[in-house]
């Protein structure tokens, strides 16, 4: 939650500076964000590689646990496809790209901005931040009506870190490892699935 606020803070700071044009024009017009994305992807990769804990979790788990992130992927993509019918200026593919953020708002918004448009990038940023906040607020309710995987499903990629405490609190300690596993798989898949979807938009 604190992380989301800091990130929103940087976004809003950029927004204000952009609005007031209080910046050298080279910064406004130069497009070096793709290089920043390269750097970020490299660091995300190193983060995954050095995280021995994650690799251990993946090696130890029972095969049926793979159904959990799979449910999140299928459910998210079907869900956004269904509601995209309500949105006149968002196509099914664009909706799926936003849904494939799985709550990982920083990376998904940046990738969508680079590969599609600023507008869809902002929608992805807001939508995936809302997903995290909704999970933090409504997990008790979700677990009551949709079973003990509900918090993990709603949290998506955030189930491994920011929403893990609330998930464990309402689904029980035995679901912690499932949450971490599902979060890791979805985190790794965000930068893979989004570009593939956008390729077909």
């Amino acid at each position, binding site marked *: 939650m604190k992380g989301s606020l800091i990130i929103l803070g*940087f*976004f809003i700071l*950029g*927004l*204000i*500076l*952009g*609005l007031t*044009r209080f*910046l050298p024009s080279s*910064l*406004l017009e130069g497009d070096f*964000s793709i290089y*920043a*994305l390269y*750097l970020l992807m*490299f*660091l995300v*990769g*190193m*983060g*995954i*590689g*050095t*995280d*021995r804990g994650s690799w251990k979790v993946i090696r130890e788990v029972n095969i*049926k646990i793979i*159904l959990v992130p799979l*449910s999140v992927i299928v*459910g*998210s993509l079907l*869900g*956004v*496809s*269904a*509601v995209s019918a309500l949105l006149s*200026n968002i196509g099914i593919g664009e909706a799926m790209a936003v*849904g494939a953020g799985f709550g990982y708002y920083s990376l998904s*918004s*940046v990738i969508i*901005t*680079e*590969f599609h448009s*600023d*507008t869809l*990038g902002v*929608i992805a940023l*807001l*939508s995936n931040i*809302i*997903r995290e906040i*909704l999970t933090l607020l409504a997990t008790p309710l979700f677990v009551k009506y*949709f*079973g*003990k*995987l*509900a918090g993990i*499903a709603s949290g998506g990629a955030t189930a491994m870190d920011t929403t893990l405490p609330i998930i464990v609190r309402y689904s029980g300690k035995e679901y912690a490892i499932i949450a971490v596993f599902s979060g890791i798989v979805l985190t790794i898949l965000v930068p893979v699935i989004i570009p*593939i979807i956008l*390729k077909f938009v």
Partner: protein
Amino acid sequence: MLTDIIIVLSIMVLGIGIGLLIGNRPKTIKIIGVLTSFSIFLLLFLLGIGVGTNKQILNNLDSIGIQALILTIGAVLGSLICAYFTYILFFKKK
């Protein structure tokens, strides 16, 4: 665009490979974490600038917010329903 995607994914795989080689060095991992946060801050800051100078987005911020909310509801409900069936069929102790 396809080449961009391949570049981005290759860079990530390269990172994973180097990360695996480096292994468990707490200091290095901490530095990677800090650098990751800063590059995310930088990219979101740049996105903010992009939005702040884009009239089309600024004029439609309210509708963008509503679209984002609707997409979130779709994604979360879809995930909850799928996870409910997975839970009932495979995880619930009888």
